[in-house]
């Protein structure tokens, strides 16, 4: 029941928000809704509600053998939590901002949240596909309505790119449906489908391309910096903290258990792709002058690492990916909020035009510094745990690849510190001559994130415990193959 609520609350509140004319009401309304969602998931995680409420199942399309099934695992819980937190943070950070057509903005945002909730929760192929698209469409409208001058092209590229992917996935789903013994779309029966190795490979790629585009993985990544740069930052936060996780999540839930043989046999290629996008994106980020593009590329790099770690098929790798999905989510959200503050308050994203903010905006400087340290996975920030585990997983898979991948921590240090130094240190420039410090809401949002980051960096056990069952589940399937 809770599972259904998690989707329904944002969905219904979102629909309601469409009809709210003036911004104040819509703002409060959506903040309230996000709080409500957060409350639900926290209740669930703290086991305040019985486990039976966690899942939900009702007949939907009998003649297609598709039921409206929602199921919880540790990983799902974690991502749902991330989704709820990020939305709360976004609404909090942008609380004072006046959007044009606020009703539509908040409505679409909440619909997108509902869609992503559904993606995380769905345990039925068709339902999953439904929500996959449902998350995409509001994103399209949001990005192309609120953003910078080139936003329409950027968003269109983003949309078409992902749409092709999801259609391929749809084909895969239909074929799977034919292969399942009981002709249903349920995740369970997908797992029991009897496939020859060639079929499995073919289907694997149909699914994987869709998810690789979403992640995005080199060489399918070019939509991402463009879209992130052009769309409004408050939306970019959601895109890059939660939506890109959909791709990784889907690989973990919809590929590894279903196509274990194919996953194992293709793992080498994909890990190499992941490492390539890790290094490639990092190197490019070094030369970026646009703050948002820089963050976008760094996020591509991190995603590449996670993808590689997934396919390393090792315990630490898997564990690392799961926690990193969460940690990267909150850290990158923090970075985007700073970017948003900088863009809205100082009116430029060009790193070269900024400087000396540490004198003018010490609080902002401190907070961003912490986020930056998180971004370079400094110990005692939460990212360290994830990256440590992932790297050790990749290292276990192959010493060489692990060593090469590890170069990225140097690169990440280079570009992140470049960014920090050029924005905050040195002397002030015209753009930052009379800069004010970070506004109150953004500050509160950032502080919440900071506390999360430091706490989870110092004591990651809660997360690790939360995802433990998923790690075991996925790996048992893979090991069965490896044996």
């Amino acid at each position, binding site marked *: 029941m809770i599972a259904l609520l998690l989707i329904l609350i944002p969905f219904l509140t979102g629909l309601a928000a469409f009809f709210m004319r003036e911004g104040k009401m819509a703002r409060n309304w959506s903040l309230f809704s996000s709080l409500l969602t957060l409350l639900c998931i926290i209740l669930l995680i703290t086991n305040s509600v019985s486990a039976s409420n966690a899942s939900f199942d009702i007949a939907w*399309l*009998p*003649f297609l053998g598709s039921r409206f099934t929602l199921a919880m695992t540790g990983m799902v819980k974690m991502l749902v939590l991330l989704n709820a937190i990020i939305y709360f943070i976004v609404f909090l950070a942008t609380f004072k901002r006046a959007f044009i057509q606020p009703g539509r903005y908040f409505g679409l945002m909440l619909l997108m949240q509902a869609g992503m909730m559904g993606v995380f929760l769905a345990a039925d192929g068709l339902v999953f*596909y*439904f929500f996959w*698209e*449902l998350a995409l*469409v509001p994103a*399209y*409208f949001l990005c*192309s*309505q609120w953003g910078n001058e080139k*936003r*329409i092209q950027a968003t*269109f590229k983003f*949309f*078409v790119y992902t*749409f*092709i992917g999801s*259609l*391929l996935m*749809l*084909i895969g789903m*239909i*074929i799977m*449906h*034919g292969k399942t013994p009981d002709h249903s779309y349920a995740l369970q029966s997908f797992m029991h489908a009897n496939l020859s190795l060639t079929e499995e490979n073919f289907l694997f790629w149909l699914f994987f391309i869709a998810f690789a585009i979403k992640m995005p993985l080199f060489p399918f990544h070019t939509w991402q910096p463009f879209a992130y740069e052009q769309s409004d930052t408050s939306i970019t936060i959601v895109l890059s903290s939660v939506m890109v996780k959909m791709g990784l999540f889907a690989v973990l839930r919809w590929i590894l258990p279903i196509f274990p043989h194919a996953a194992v046999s293709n793992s080498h290629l994909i890990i190499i792709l992941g490492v390539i996008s890790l290094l490639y994106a990092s190197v490019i980020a070094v030369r970026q002058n646009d703050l948002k593009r820089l963050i976008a590329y760094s996020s591509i790099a991190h995603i590449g690492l996670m993808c590689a770690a997934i396919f390393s098929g090792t315990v630490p790798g898997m564990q690392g990916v799961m926690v990193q999905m969460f940690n990267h989510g909150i850290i990158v959200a923090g970075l985007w909020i700073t970017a948003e503050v900088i863009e809205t308050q100082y009116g430029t994203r060009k790193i070269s035009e900024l400087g000396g903010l540490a004198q003018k905006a010490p609080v902002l400087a401190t907070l961003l510094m912490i986020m930056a340290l998180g971004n370079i996975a400094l110990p005692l920030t939460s990212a360290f745990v994830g990256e440590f585990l992932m790297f050790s997983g990749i290292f276990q898979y192959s010493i060489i690849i692990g060593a090469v991948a590890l170069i990225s921590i140097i690169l990440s240090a280079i570009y992140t510190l470049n960014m920090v130094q050029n924005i905050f240190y040195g002397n002030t420039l015209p753009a930052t001559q009379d800069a004010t410090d970070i506004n109150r809401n953004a500050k509160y949002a950032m502080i919440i994130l900071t506390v999360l980051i430091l706490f989870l960096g110092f004591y990651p056990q809660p997360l690790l415990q939360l995802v433990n069952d998923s790690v075991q589940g996925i790996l048992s399937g893979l090991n069965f193959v490896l044996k």
Partner: protein
Amino acid sequence: MNALILSAAWGIILMFCSILVKNKKSFGYIAAFGLLTILIGNIADTYGMQITHYNIYPMLSLDRFGLLFNTIAILSTLIFVLLSTIEIRKTGKYQPEFYTLIFFVLCGITILTSYQNLLMLFLGIEILSIPLYILTGSDKKNLKSNEASLKYFLMGAFSTGIMLMGIALIYGGTGTFNLQPSTHSVVGTYHGISFLEITGLIILMCAMAFKASVAPFHFWAPDVYDGAPTPVTSFMATIVKAAAFIAFFKLCEVRVADTSAAINWKMIFSIMIVATLFIGNITAIFQQSVKRMLAYSSIAQAGFMMYAIFSLNDVAKEGLLYYALAYSLATIGLFATMSKMKDYTFEGYNGLAKKQPTLAATNAIFLLSLSGIPLTAGFFAKYYMLASVIKTGSNTWLVIVGVCFAAIAIYYYFRLIQSMYFKTGNPETLDEEITPFFKNSLIAVAVLIILLGAFPQLLLNWFYF
């Protein structure tokens, strides 16, 4: 049978209305009422209640498939009439005749959905076409309309000739006009099938492809759709096209199915499909006028409907019906909105969302449905088409091609959304014609689309019950 009789009757009634009824506004409502009765009659028919027990064998046979499609067609026509009464009123002093002709077209449709005999196919097609020639030209002073009707008529007549040649050859091969070839048909030399029959079938298929505007026989469609008065276009491009597809499907279902053991028809069909998808989508991209873009998009959609004919299985059967409804609803809605615009180009739509939020929102839903986004009927339509092909097995390449073109289609559908929502401009609309009634019916259509997208069984359960 009820539908056939009733629509004929209503056609005649409206014909006389032009003399008896003076109030110009009332025709639309009379027609709507008539359509309602026809709808009821048809539904009654599906439950086995018929006006007359006239022996229609072996010319027609009423099966669930045909009747359900009748329902869909009549329903869409009703919606069409409700949405475009004002346009029809504007087309001149011939509106009763206009409705008459539409009713006669419905007669043709009811014949096409239940024909058992090639003669009925022929008559049905003709009853369908001849009124359309006239409707296309009904805007007499408008040269575009003239040109369209001339082109349509000449090519239509030509295709009739082709079609008759096909039928004649089939008769020569099988010795009967029955759709289901009887047992004592000629034993042929080509895998036990007569050459003449096969040749005839291919020629007949070409003629049907023409009616269904399937490439490479689609050429009339863009010009005619573009030139005809907007209401006529929306009627032609949706309901009539769908009916042609049903006829096409029925033909192939019997003839292709029972020869397919010996003969591989897939080749021809796949050529037609790829050509249609290619021409429709690729050409639509460049169009500047929304009307013409929709014309091409209707060709592209025809390419998807061809999937059903490619893979003649139950999934395809359901899918075709579903597609017909989803596609008709969305397109009718789009055309109805377009007829309220002064400027049919994309620029004319710029900033519609500000001026007419309801129109913009509903149109967005229609466009999403056409591009096959989930939670709209269009998604399941596409789903069924893809599924039907996948069910045949070993034709996945065709599906992937279709998917790529579906992605291309996004370009021109979303282009309209972009101009409505994200471009700034001051669109000129015929505000006095945008009545609350119009808006509400648009909303109703949108809601229907979304309902069908969420619960396709609303429609498909009828198919089984």
